[in-house]
């Protein structure tokens, strides 16, 4: 009866009132109010991401978290605006000693923020971790690397089984980690407080809420203009728009087309950048119906990428005619132009059945794109069925060669080298394996064995022509455009096509 008494009438309401006050009070204990929009100049930049970054360990972490860890950690080799390797980073020069040996020179006198030396041994350790860790995101890139040595403090020697011209390119996405600290802390410990050589150092994190980095006063290069960056996140695109509109953040990343348009209409500055992410339709030439070359050609001619871009994306994507043109703005010399009449003619009145498989809700407007591709095929005479799958299942089925017909998904290169797509999608033993051809395998190997990208370029053009124009195994559709909005007075945020952001010159 005691409980009964205590719960009586208005005491019950008083308890509710007390709960409200306690709730509000607890919230206050959670940290400071981040709405400090009145700050200016060198104050920390408040960056809003689309999702909480997964692990900040660059060895095993998905590249979506690169925006955060790249403030503290640096790639072994920097890239220029053309996405080609430059000598401005930790590795300052490289030479190909012989066909299978690369010698890299490491910038002297650079240290990690914890005092460890960022020397050749650290570089060799990072490449080894990248090649050997079971969960390494880039493990497959380094399968051809047989030896990694650091003969002295500034020299790293990398040997490959067969000649490979793009090793320096691959090192542009490998981020240097301090050997002792990484070993001592392990992946989880490192991700909880990353240590690098970059322009910012770890400042702290509130679980699930934010991650902060502050200016590294001992940075070896040009120091950051601002005091730091605080990253927060909001999954809902409308929230990201509302937070930038209400000046709660300085920069809001990853605005889908609808929110980008709404932001522009509301007078918010929106920057749109063509990314290296390509959406491609893959035709499986090993199974019916596309084991018939005539049907592949008919499908390739039926699909109108320009109409898709215009009709669905309203300028928020760029029509893409090639498979191996990895750099934004690049187009192949030969391509397929949509021709619905010719596609119909090739079918000659037949109505072959095609299954379209796509990763539901994985990419912006992917449902509409799949419907548009299906609509074009139906117009030509194909009978179409749709199979939306979750991303994990789709990849599993593709790897298991269980996706007949046409599948649509994205290629998101971490480095701007054509071999990324050749090894991933074109070779007989590639992930998709939808276009097995000994000629492609031979050309792919020949291209890698060239001295440099320039020499390899004609071979990649030839490969593109075989895959896209002659065999019609691939129907490139478009490149995604990435939008981000900046608040009033915010400047200097630079977004790169390979999901990198330079905050060092940003002010507000």
């Amino acid at each position, binding site marked *: 009866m005691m409980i*009964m008494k205590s*719960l*009586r*009438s208005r005491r*019950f*309401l008083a308890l*509710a009132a*007390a*709960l*409200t006050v*306690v*709730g*509000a009070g*607890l*919230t*206050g204990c*959670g*940290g400071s*109010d*981040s*709405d400090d929009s009145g700050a200016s100049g060198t104050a920390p930049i408040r960056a809003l991401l689309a*999702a909480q970054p*997964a*692990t900040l*360990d660059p060895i095993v972490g998905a*590249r979506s978290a690169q925006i955060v860890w790249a403030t503290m950690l640096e790639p072994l080799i920097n890239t220029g605006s053309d996405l080609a390797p430059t000598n401005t980073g930790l590795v300052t020069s490289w030479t190909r000693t012989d066909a299978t040996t690369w010698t890299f020179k490491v910038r002297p006198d650079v240290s990690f923020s914890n005092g460890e030396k960022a020397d050749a041994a650290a570089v060799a350790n990072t490449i080894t971790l990248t090649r050997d860790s*079971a*969960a390494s*995101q880039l*493990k*497959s890139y380094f399968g051809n690397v047989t030896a990694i040595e650091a003969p002295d403090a500034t020299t790293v020697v990398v040997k490959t089984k067969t000649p490979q011209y793009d090793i320096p390119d691959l090192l542009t996405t490998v981020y240097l980690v301090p050997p002792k600290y990484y070993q001592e802390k392990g*992946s*989880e410990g490192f*991700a909880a407080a990353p240590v690098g050589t970059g322009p910012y150092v770890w400042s702290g994190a*509130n*679980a*699930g*809420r934010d991650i902060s980095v502050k200016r590294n006063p001992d940075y070896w290069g040009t120091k950051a203009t601002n005091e730091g960056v605080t990253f*927060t996140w*909001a*999954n*809902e695109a*409308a*929230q990201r728009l*509302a*937070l930038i*509109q*209400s000046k*709660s953040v300085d920069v809001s990343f990853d605005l889908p087309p609808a929110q980008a348009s709404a932001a522009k209409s509301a007078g918010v500055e929106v920057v749109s950048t063509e990314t290296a992410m390509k959406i491609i339709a893959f035709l499986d030439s090993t199974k019916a119906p596309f084991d018939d070359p005539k049907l592949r050609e008919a499908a390739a001619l039926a699909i109108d990428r320009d109409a898709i871009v215009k009709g669905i994306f309203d300028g928020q994507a760029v029509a893409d005619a090639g498979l191996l043109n990895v750099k934004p703005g690049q187009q192949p010399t030969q391509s397929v132009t949509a021709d619905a009449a010719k596609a119909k003619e090739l079918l000659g009145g037949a109505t072959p059945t095609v299954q379209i498989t796509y990763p539901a809700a994985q990419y912006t407007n992917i449902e509409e794109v799949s419907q548009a591709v299906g609509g074009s095929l139906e117009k030509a005479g194909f009978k179409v069925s749709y199979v939306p799958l*979750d*991303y*994990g*299942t*789709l*990849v599993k089925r*593709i*790897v298991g060669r269980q996706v007949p017909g046409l599948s649509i998904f994205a290629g*998101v290169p971490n480095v701007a080298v054509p071999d*990324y797509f050749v090894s991933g999608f074109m070779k007989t033993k590639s*992930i998709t394996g939808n276009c097995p051809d000994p000629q492609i395998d031979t050309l792919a190997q020949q291209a890698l064995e060239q001295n440099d990208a320039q020499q390899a370029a004609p071979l990649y053009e030839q490969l593109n022509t075989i895959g896209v124009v002659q065999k019609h195994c691939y129907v490139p559709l478009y490149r995604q455009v990435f939008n981000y909005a900046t608040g009033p007075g915010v400047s200097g945020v630079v977004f790169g096509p390979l999901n990198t952001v330079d905050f060092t010159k940003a002010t507000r």
Partner: protein
Amino acid sequence: MKASTVRRVGGRLASLFASLLIALSLAFLLGRLSGDPTATILGPMAPPEQREALRHELGLDLPVVVQYLDYLKGVFTGDLGQSLQFYQSNTSMIADRLPFTLQLVGAGMALALLVGIPLGVLAATREGTWWDRGASTLALLGQSVPVFWFGMMLVVLFAVKLGWLPAGQSGSPKHLILPALTMSVYPMAHIARLTRASMSDALAEPYIDSARARGISTRRVVWRHAFTNAMMPILTIVVLQTGILLSGAVAVEYVYSWPGLGQLALQAIQFRDFPLVQAIVVFGALVFVLLNLLVDVLHSIVDPRVR
């Protein structure tokens, strides 16, 4: 304690344990149906050998029965596994996020009580009047309006247009206002309707007439006599609604980027991080089972007939 009471308590505990086991099993099965997590961890370009090696490392190549037994063993020894995307212990991640969800649910439920109960009492004591119709309409609206839409409207009005309150995220008491208000709408309406019905019944009882005949003031009759007796169903629904809110704050946390368990669950689902999804489901099921137990205990204390 009487043998029949022991039997009843034992039976109740067994049924709660069975509910928990069913929830755990469903969470496990759904996790296994959600596609290959190695595709998300390693990306689509990883070769099959690497994918297989990782499956082996994660124990995904073991027979499903073995995985299930390992999972149950982990749950009952307090080990909820490790997240596939964050590489952190799921238990510590839930512990980090739980205070935020508790704040939100606490504030939302308090608002629901503060408004819902007086609204229900008002409607019951003025049955058939415009007060009653107004309160009932408000309650109906509260139960019909989609939380997601309502939240977005509040953001547009109070954060974007008026600039009075933050559009989302957390950090200060101001950040709690809109999410708590959004969170409170459904339970508030539910409590108001239930209070009205319960109070109407209580006010029709002969002891109320008797109290009035003895000259006791209307206020005292309503709150001390009628409300006290009408409180049991309200108390039950409050406890159960709290459980629902605790495990179902996803929409509100999503709309406001509130860093609670719902947001964590959503991200885990998007990444196909099934150990984390399972851990959150287990936690939700456990909370619900415990709250059900609490309702039973409260019932037996308050009402001797159910002892």
